[in-house]
Structure formats: C-alpha cells, structure tokens
C-alpha cells in the first residue's frame, strides 16, 4: 500500500484510456475556468491569482529538483530574487521591454543554478540543504552591496506592463493572462521532460544513484542540469512576481521565502506537477487565513496547519486528490 509512487507504472489499458479522457476533460475545464476568471473577479483578486501562478512556477521548479531528483534546496528564494531583480534592472536601467526580461531571467538563473549545482553536487541531503540555505541568507546582503545596480535597501519600483492595445485588457488582467500562459507553457515543458528519457534518469538518480550510474546515467551532469532547470523556473517566477507586485527590495527575498517555497512543494505534493498549483494556493492564502483565525499567533496556526497537512495528506494535496480520484473511479466502474 505504501509503496512509493513510481511514474511509469502502467495501469490496465482500458482504464488508462478512460482515465486519460476524464483527466483531459478536467484539465480543459479548469483551464476554461481560469480564463473566465478575469471577467468575474476584481483586479485585486486577479493580482492574488497572478501571485499564485508565479508561486506555482517557482514550486514547479523546486519540485523538479526536490520531488523528482531528491535534492533539497533551502535557497530557491535566491533565484526568485535574481529573477525579480533581473526584470527590475533590465526595465529600469536599460529600458528593455518586460517581455524580454523573462527569457533573460530564465537563462541567467539556469547558468547560476548550473554553476552552483556543480560544486554543490558533492554535498548530499542535509549538507546540500545547508549550502543552499547559505545562498538564501547571502542574497539579500549581496543585493544591498551592489546598490548602484539594485537600488540598495531602497529597492526598485517596476513599472506595471500595459496590455497590447488590441486586447483591451487592464494591466491586472493582462498580467494574469501572461502569468497563466507562462505557467501553462512551463508545465507542458516540465511534463514532457519528466515523462521521457531525461525524466527517468532524474528519477532514477533520486531512487538509486548507484544503480543509475551503473545504467549509464551521468549523475553529476544530470544533477547539475536539474539544478539549473529548477533555478531557471524559479527565476522566471521571480520575474513575473516582480512585474505584478511592482516592487523589489532585499527584504522581499528573506530566507523565510525559501523555506516557504519548500513548504509549498511538500504541501502541494512531491513529484507532482499539478501539486505546484495546490502548493502555491497554500503559500499565497494560508498566511491570511492563519491571521483570520488568530491575530495573536498567526505563525502558530500556520505551523499547526503544516503539521496537519503532513498527517492528513502525506502525499501532499496532489496525492490526496489522486487518492480520492482513484476511489471515485473505483466506485463508478
């Protein structure tokens, strides 16, 4: 019963077809709902949803590393910061169009992630977690140090992008769609990558590194690539978040952010692509919910909810949904 979820277990053929159709229908329904939201929600809510999507991209990135590849990072807030600042600096200092800043963030974070991944590879498990935590701690200070570029402690405002004139959307609606589109694109890329040869190698390294090596997987290269890819996703998320918040400062990227991201991945569900969205909902809305329960000790509520999540849904929110889905389909068939 408690065997680990393995991606390439194949159910009976007939069941797969039916499942796949239902799943596809569900996904299209959700997507239609997401596209309808801008016409029924306030700008403020759209801003919140855009934040959810940005977090979801970051969680997706972190999940590739932690969920699929088994490397724990407590430093992804740093890549989120690099992405945010890349966008801010490119727009404010160099007047580059905001659309170009996303791929630049992605490439830059891929490079930093890959380079950081190379030495960090020699560290396993908790040691890697600590090394990445150092990254999370140092980035705010590095940002303050290069104040000619980053605006120092004052931070930088990022102008809100206007929608292309033909679309007649207000800035919040436009950002919502932009973030949603990027999220979808990156989800599809992640899905394709992880389903194929590369994904199998990545997962094999997680489950049994020695066996993977023996099978001819270049562990060091794949782990570094995985780190780079993960950082790249998180960087793009940081760029989008900077656009929707309209402000970056070193205080926006405290070490707590990295921990929050990791918590989001685990709550959403390790090694699950849809889990990223569920985790992002937790990251975005749980602090406010905790405050509504108790103004005196919101963090205690937050902590209690985390522990509750771990007990009630050990496979994360996505694992729980999967479980419910299986029960439901068994009942129906």
């Amino acid at each position, binding site marked *: 019963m408690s065997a680990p979820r393995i991606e390439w277990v194949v159910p009976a053929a007939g069941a797969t077809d039916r499942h796949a159709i239902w799943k596809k229908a569900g996904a299209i329904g959700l997507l239609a709902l997401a596209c309808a939201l801008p016409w029924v929600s306030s700008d403020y809510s759209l801003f919140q949803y855009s934040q959810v999507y940005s977090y979801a991209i970051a969680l997706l990135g972190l999940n590739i590393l932690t969920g699929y590849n088994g490397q724990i990072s407590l430093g992804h807030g740093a890549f989120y910061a690099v992405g945010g600042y890349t966008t801010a600096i490119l727009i404010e200092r160099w007047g580059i169009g905001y659309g170009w800043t996303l791929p630049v963030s992605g490439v830059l974070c891929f490079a930093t992630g890959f380079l950081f991944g190379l030495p960090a590879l020699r560290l396993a498990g908790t040691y890697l977690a600590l090394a990445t935590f150092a990254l999370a701690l140092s980035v705010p200070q590095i940002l303050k140090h290069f104040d000619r570029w980053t605006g120092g402690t004052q931070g930088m405002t990022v102008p809100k992008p206007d929608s292309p004139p033909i679309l007649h959307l207000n800035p919040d609606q436009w950002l919502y769609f932009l973030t949603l589109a990027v999220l979808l694109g990156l989800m599809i890329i992640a899905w394709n990558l992880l389903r194929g040869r590369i994904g199998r190698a990545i997962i094999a390294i997680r489950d049994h590194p020695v066996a993977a090596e023996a099978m001819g997987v270049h562990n060091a290269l794949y782990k570094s690539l995985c780190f780079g890819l993960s950082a790249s996703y998180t960087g793009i998320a940081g760029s989008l978040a900077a656009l929707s918040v309209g402000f970056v400062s070193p205080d926006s990227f405290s070490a707590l952010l990295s921990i929050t991201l990791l918590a989001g991945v685990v709550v959403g569900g390790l090694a699950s692509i849809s889990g990223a969205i569920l985790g992002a909902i937790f990251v975005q809305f749980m602090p406010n919910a905790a405050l509504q329960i108790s103004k005196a000790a*919101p963090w205690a509520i937050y902590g209690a909810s985390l522990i509750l999540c771990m007990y009630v849904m050990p496979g994360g929110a996505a694992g729980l949904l999967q479980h419910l889905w299986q029960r439901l389909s068994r009942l129906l068939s």
Partner: protein
Amino acid sequence: MAVTKKVWSMAKYASALAAMLISASGAFAADPGVTKTEIKIGNIMPYSGPVSAYGTIGRGLDAYFKKLNDEGGINGRKINFLSYDDAYTPARAVEQARRLVEQDQVLFVFQPLGTPSNSAIWKYMNDKKVPQLFVATGATKWGDPVGHPWTMGWQPAYQTEAYVYAQYLLKTKPDAKVAVLLQNDDFGKDYLKGFKAGLGTAAAKMVIAEQTYETTDPTVDSQIANLKNSGADVFLNVTTPKFALQAIKKAADLGWKPLQFLTNVSTSLSTVMTPAGVEATKGIVTALYLKDYDDPQWKDDPAMKEWFAWMKKYYPQGNEHDQFNVYAYSVAQTLVHVLKQAGNDLSRANVMKQAANLKDLSLPMLLPGIKINTSPTDFYPIEQEQLARYDGARWVLFGELIDGSAVRVSRR
C-alpha cells in the same frame, strides 16, 4: 426566447440594485470610504514576522478608535478601522494595500508600518491618489510633497533625530571622537546622513569609525570590538532593539565606556534597557518626543491620567510601559484632528490638504512645548525632541527642546 427574457429581466434587477447601492454609498462624497455614518480607514501592520512587537501599535489604534466611536465619532461618523498583517514583507504589503483600496474601498491608508512595506506601496498609493497618511517609519524620504504628494510621515525623521544629537555634541563635546554602529538599510544610512549634516564641516574629523550589521546577523560582537579599538569616546548606536541590547551589553563586557547615544527606536525599558542591566546602561542618552508612563514627573499630569484610563478601559491587554501605546494614542489623535479640520469635505484631496495644514498643534502626550506643524511644502509633522539620560531605572529628560528642522535646509 423565454430564457433570454428571463436573463434580461434579471440583469435589469441587478443593475437597479447596483445603482441603489452606489447611490447609497456615494451620495455624500465623491471618494469611497465615506458615508453619513462611517469613515473607513485602512492600515497595514506586522502582526506576525520578525518585528511583530510593533503590532501593539495597530491594536492601540484600534482601541483609540473604539473610544472615539463610543464618544460619538467625528461629526457623527464612526471610524471603521481595517487593519491587516503584512508580516513586514513588501509583497504582502502591496497585496494588503490593494485589498484595502480596491476591495474594501477605504478612504485612505493610515499608519502602515515599516520602511520596506511603505516603499513597496509608495508608487501605488500615489498613482491611485489615495493618501498614505502618517506612515509609521522615520525614513526621511516620506516628506516629498512634490514627487509623492499623497504620502506623509509623522514621527521625527531619522535625520532629524540624528541632527539633534549632533547639535548637542557640538555644543557640549566639540572634540569628540565618534564611533557609529548602524543597521545596513535606509534607517542606518538616513541616520548617519542626518548626524553628519548636523556636525557640518566637523563631521570628517569627528566620525572616526563606522560599522554596519545586517538584521540577519546573529550578533554585533565583532563590530563593537572594532569600534572600541578605534579609540572613540562617543558611541552612536543606530540599531533596532535586539541589536541595541547586544551592542550595549558587549560594550560593557569589553569595558568600553564612551558617551552613548541610543536611537529612539530602541529606548524600550522592557526589551532593551532593563535586560542590559544598570551597569551597562547608566548614562546612555537618547531623544524623546512622547511622555513616558514610567517618568514620575507625569504622575499627576491630567493627560497621563487620561491616557492611562483609556489603556485600562479600551486596551487592558496592552502593556502600559510600552511606549508604542503612547505613540498609537498620539498619532490617532493627530488623525482625528485632521479629520475634524476636514469637516464634511471628506475627499481624499481634502484629507491630504488638511494633513498638510496643521498649525501649532500640541497633543496631550507629546512632551510640553512640542508643536506639530505642516504645510504644503513641509511634510514633516514632528521635528522637535528633548534629550533624556538613563539613570539605571528610567529616562530622565534634561535640557531644552532641540529643533531639528534645520536638517531640512542642510539637505537641500
């Protein structure tokens, strides 16, 4: 056909209802947040996170508006005070500001706390033309009537306070050698700037050592050791409470006994002075602008008695030794004054106009003689302070009020 008809009639009902709601809320003023019976005010506070101790200000403000509402409100309007947590993170501050302005439709945002949070919402508030009134931070940049006419501070700016120390030092110890410990952010940098402006041409000669720290540093031990080794005889301690305590204790441990100036941010007895111990704290100088509950000279002061009665009745869970509760009471009173002065024209523009038109306003819990003055070109409400020396148990005021407004001139 039938369906379209039904939808159409439903739409008509809905639009009629919407029109009614709009006219009900908008009958009185063009701006949102005001009705005949209510003024809706927003606020953002760090109730959670690294500086949650400041949360008492939010609870104090709420308690003051409860008292005000019990007494009938302002011109028959009750204050509806909505206060949200941002955990001291800029992204959440933006989220809460948007929630207040767009969803809750407040008239303005009052006393949002923290320099990073206020910086994050600065542009948004000014773009939206919604007052960001009496922000709870001493950063000097809030007084920018030209670039940011919808934002105003309240407490003495950090530069103003530092200027006051510099004036005192020039007068009493002109040959001092000063060592500075500062937090590596706006707060620290502002402070040093004001201090050097106050010293003028003597600054280069007098300030002999500077050390910075990050709020994430575990201790400031090495910085204090470096400052001691510089041979300075004056120590300007520009730190937040946790680090202030560390710095004071470490200086005492090392046997360094300079004349110490401690920023007003960290004068709390319960979190800094008492834990540091009498030996380490005796003789430290700071600048104050509010009356202190623990100062016996106000024992029979009617204003203090009134404040204390308010605390007991409306905020009994609050700590009367906590100066933030005096602060909350006073800044709320300033706001009430502005709203009364605005009369029935409760538009956002008029609220801002009246906030920039305070003339010689004295408040019961400000130190005697301190007057709040603002004008369309002066967005710095409080600019006078009085020095106080710690005697091992409490702060004892000494000397005259010192006016720090001249720092504005030297800034130009």
